[in-house]
């Protein structure tokens, strides 16, 4: 493991972003995959792990009296502000991180070296955990109207679609091929979700190449086939999720939107969700608000408004709700597209499915949903998440917005999801971590070319292993709720502190209801085992329980209680001298740090041999206080 540390720097300070607490002092290590900071000043050993893939930007700030500052922004919204003693060291860390955080070739991604010591068979089984065919079967497909076709098996129809797609039986190969020539990048209308109760379907595609007047008979036949696959409704919706102005502008480039006159019985509708560039800038503004040092309430709310972030979230949610209502209440099929049909379309279709079908609100179902609407249908994770050194204008928080919409739904419907907020955060982390193969590349074909399925691991089995901590204790089961009809008035949307200020523990509730309930659930299982074991030992016991026993219920829960973060923050903007004499500092909470380490270190829970070895080395070095140079 001598080659493990690429760099080691002593006397590095880690500043606290919000308070005037004394900065931590410690050692910074760079490994092939992580930046590791070990705080030597804390009474209890504290480690901060940052995955190189998570690093969005590294900035050198102007020299301060404390040294050379290095500011790191992560894609999971972690911000680390280091101050390094020597300029030379600072520069070395800076250049190394620039290189490490922006791999050029896909083979350099973590997933290709990540080795959890799992057998080949298990790895392969892991990739088979999610089978989209099973989901189509669940919807009743194939049936009289819909079929799974391999018309795209050699990616001849569309190279960003998967080999197997679901199209109306009535649309023959000629129609499919013809339609594909009239759709941007050949992304023809295919089925996303079939609402079994009334045969209304959600279909998705890219914009038509209609320009100002072009039309295509096969495309018109394709839409007719989709409409006729739902005999219960005389019409279907065609939803363009872009603002009308954007769609019109596209006509000049030979693209555009459907002319209602050319298609029989369609109702055309624009839903103004902004494009990836607007969303990227919006997130940037939001993060600036989140990073403000002691903002006033006005600063924060004005900043939140000006960022437009919640406006965009609401737009996505509104679109999802429109689709779900069209399908359920109006019994009409809906065809959705944006420009290429892989960003806004993915958001809206997956949200609508989530609203309509309780299956997608389970662990397994949510994995299927992401595999189906995002991964298989060619959301360009690699570009949107900036996995590789590339065009920064391609980066956009499209998937983050979807995850946030799900979180917003969880706030309104706390008992309807099998999983909790942490599950969403884990997925969000791994979309950027490149530790698993699922989100690499831009489409199915590219993942095949990269040999993802042979060389990397799938995320889903790893998340299922952690089910206990990711579950929602309030979940009332699969059958308790069917369709969800969320309130989308503006006050129904909250700022998601747990995402955008996730690493600023001081801002979160100091006691966690989720932890408390999860411990109740695990307690419950122990107690049930206990009770049945005792009952077995008492063969003659069968009568009613003595009532007086009920008063003893508190016993045994104390141990599971989560310790509480408990330090005052700066209540004075400029504290009087007496108040800033360090009484506020030095009371860094032990549990929160352990917790933080756990969260920051994505691979820590997995049996990762070499990294664990690294931890071991770090631990032993910290003990004798004299780390060696390599």
């Amino acid at each position, binding site marked *: 493991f001598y080659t493990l540390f690429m760099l080691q720097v002593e006397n590095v300070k880690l500043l606290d972003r*919000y308070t005037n607490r004394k900065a931590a002092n410690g050692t910074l290590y760079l490994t092939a995959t992580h930046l590791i900071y070990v705080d030597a000043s804390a009474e209890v050993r504290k480690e901060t792990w940052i995955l190189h893939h998570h690093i969005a930007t590294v900035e050198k700030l102007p020299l301060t009296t404390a040294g050379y500052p290095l500011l790191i922004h992560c894609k999971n919204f972690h911000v680390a502000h280091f101050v390094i003693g020597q300029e030379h060291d600072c520069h070395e860390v800076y250049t190394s991180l620039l290189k490490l955080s922006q791999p050029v070739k896909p083979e350099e991604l973590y997933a290709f070296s990540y080795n959890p010591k799992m057998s080949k068979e298990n790895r392969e089984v892991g990739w088979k955990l999610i089978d989209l065919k099973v989901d189509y079967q669940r919807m009743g497909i194939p049936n009289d109207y819909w079929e799974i076709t391999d018309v795209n098996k050699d990616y001849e129809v569309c190279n960003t679609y998967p080999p197997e797609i679901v199209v109306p039986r009535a649309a023959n190969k000629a129609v499919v091929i013809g339609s594909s020539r009239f759709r941007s990048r050949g992304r023809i209308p295919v089925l996303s979700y079939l609402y079994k109760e009334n045969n209304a379907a959600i279909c998705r595609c890219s914009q038509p190449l209609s320009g100002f007047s072009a039309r295509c008979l096969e495309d018109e036949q394709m839409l007719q086939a989709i409409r006729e696959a739902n005999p219960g409704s005389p019409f279907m919706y065609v939803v363009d999720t872009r603002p009308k102005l954007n769609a019109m502008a596209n006509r000049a480039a030979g693209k555009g939107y459907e002319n209602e006159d050319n298609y029989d019985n369609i109702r055309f509708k624009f839903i103004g969700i902004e494009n990836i560039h607007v969303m990227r800038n919006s997130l940037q503004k939001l993060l600036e608000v989140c990073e403000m040092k*002691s903002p*006033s*309430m*006005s*600063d*924060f*709310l*004005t900043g939140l*408004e000006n960022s437009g972030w*919640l406006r965009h979230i*609401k737009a996505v949610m*509104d679109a999802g709700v429109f689709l779900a209502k069209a399908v359920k209440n109006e019994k009409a099929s809906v065809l959705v597209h944006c420009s290429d049909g892989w960003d806004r379309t993915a958001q809206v279709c997956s949200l609508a499915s989530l609203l309509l079908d309780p299956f997608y609100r389970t662990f397994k179902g949510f994995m299927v949903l992401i595999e189906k609407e995002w991964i298989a249908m060619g959301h360009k994770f690699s570009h949107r998440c900036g996995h590789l050194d590339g065009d920064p204008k391609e980066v956009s928080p499209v998937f983050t917005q979807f995850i946030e919409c799900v979180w917003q739904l969880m706030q309104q419907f*706390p*008992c309807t999801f099998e999983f909790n907020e942490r599950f969403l955060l884990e997925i969000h982390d791994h979309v950027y971590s490149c530790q698993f193969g699922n989100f690499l590349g831009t489409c199915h074909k590219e993942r095949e070319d990269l040999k993802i399925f042979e060389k990397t691991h799938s995320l889903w089995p790893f998340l299922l292993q952690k089910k206990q901590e990711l579950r929602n*204790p*309030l979940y009332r089961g699969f059958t308790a709720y069917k369709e969800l009809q969320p*309130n989308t*008035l*503006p*006050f129904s*949307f909250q700022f998601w502190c747990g995402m955008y200020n996730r690493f*600023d523990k*001081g*801002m*979160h*509730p*100091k*006691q966690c*209801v989720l932890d*408390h*309930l999860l411990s*109740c659930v695990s*307690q*419950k299982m122990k*107690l049930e085992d206990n*009770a049945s074991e*005792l009952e077995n*030992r*008492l063969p003659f*016991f069968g009568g009613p*329980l003595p009532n007086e*026993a*009920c008063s*003893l*219920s*508190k*016993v045994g*829960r*104390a141990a599971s209680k989560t310790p*509480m973060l*408990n330090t*005052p*923050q700066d*209540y*004075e903007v400029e504290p*009087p001298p*007496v*108040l800033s004499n360090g*009484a506020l500092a030095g009371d860094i909470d032990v549990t929160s740090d352990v917790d933080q380490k756990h969260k920051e270190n994505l691979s820590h829970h997995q049996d990762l041999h070499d990294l664990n070895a690294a931890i071991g080395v770090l631990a032993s070095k910290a003990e004798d206080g004299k780390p060696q140079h390599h």
Partner: protein
Amino acid sequence: MEFAELIKTPRADNVVLHRPFYLAVEGTLCLTGHHLIFSSRRQDNAEELWLLHSNIDSIEKRFVGSLGTIIIKCKDLRIIQLDIPGMEECLNIASSIEALSTLDSVTLMYPFFYRPMFEIVEDGWRSFLPDQEFELLSLVTDEWRLSCINKEFSVCPSYPPVVIVPKSIDDEALRKVAMFRHGSRFPVLSYYHKKNGMVMMRSSQPLTGTNGRRCKEDEKLINATLRPGKRGYIIDTRSLNVAQQARAKGGGFEQEAHYPQWRRIHKCIERFNILQESLIKLVEACNDQSHNMDRWLSKLEASNWLTHIKEILTAACLAAQCIDREGASVLVHGTEGTDSTLQVTSLAQIILDPRCRTICGFESLVVREWLQAGHPFQQRCAQSAYSNSKQKWEAPVFLLFLDCVWQILRQFPCSFEFNEQFLIMLFEHAYASQFGTFLGNNENERSKLKLPQKTMSLWSWVNRSEELSKFQNPLFEANSLVIWPSVAPQSLQLWEGVFLRWNRPSKFLDEAHEEMINIIKYNKELQAKVNALRRQLAEMETDDRMQENL
């Protein structure tokens, strides 16, 4: 009976009631002296709505042909609509409600007529007496005494008859100090921090005026709370600017020269119409049905409600920090010492004292720091967010306090014995109630109105097990620590339970709450079962052994 004169039309049939998220219901409307009663005529699902006239904040009427519509906006922020056939009937009913909801005389209010339908276990009027509080204090310190100087309310009209003051200060000195403080509100003990013996006192502003008047007794009084060589903090809830301006009107603040052992910190907490305006704007924003996100956020920001929450909480945290972390005594005051002062002293106690986070302790806090301390409830809560009266003395000071408590409760969900419903209940009763607890502006007025003899106390009703069970927090686990809330904007939220309560369906959130209760309850039962089984097993084993021995 004079109510009869006010009720021109006591009853109307075929009235349709509209409420958000409910189907419209047809039924009969009745007016009584204190209630508006609506009962649906549907046989299968008879439904009754009882609304106290005193809960009505404003009423609007509209006509379409001969169909009249009354929109009733309540102090608890609910809005209902009644369609009443017949123009005359509708006008009569509207004017009756208007008259009955704005009665001048306190003694005509419902609490004077209310006869409880429950058995009184404990008289709430006697639940929280100052002597009891002093007894508790005497167990830990002998530096304080109970003074009866205000027995006849002769020294300070807004103080209770007995107050706790430093032992070394006699009543004669207190009289002099009273002359030096606004409204005679001389410094009294608010809270004793057992952990380190530090105290929090509260008062009104000193009457220094422009020529810097001083009062040796005042200085002596507050210095009596300092440990030798230690400094104390004066938290003035006004900005320095406002405090300086107060001198022109005879008020002012403690000069460094005369109070060398005290460090003064100014915190700006708004008062009166600024707060009332803030409430009106916030509620207006919450009732806006527009789908425009920017408009919502900008209205929320412009209401400044959360800014006030942040300011009040910050000041309270500062006071608590001085006491607990700095080991210093604190004096809190603003101008009158009846509003922002009480917000700060009561919230600081929530932070510092685990007892205040229990149901009984919180009730005691409300009694001590709000009712007995002379917060003018009658004036402040006369109207709520929908009224156009705009009287200077109306202000949601108590609601802001409850909101701050809710913010702390949200951050420490396991540290409070009570739940959000308890706080909402107190909000409702402060504005309209069948109980006499929140009537009057101070103990003096309450005693003149003979409220304890003539009305029922809210506490008599709440503190019965059938009511208490609704207000208990299933997550509560006694926590003896000081709890430090975060005051970052990201940590403070709109109190949906109050402000969005009538604007969204609560079904799914209620179910979540129910589920949480069930999980915890089931675990307790399981634990009990396991314990019982263990005991049974142990007994059987003992029996076996005894039999073997025989």
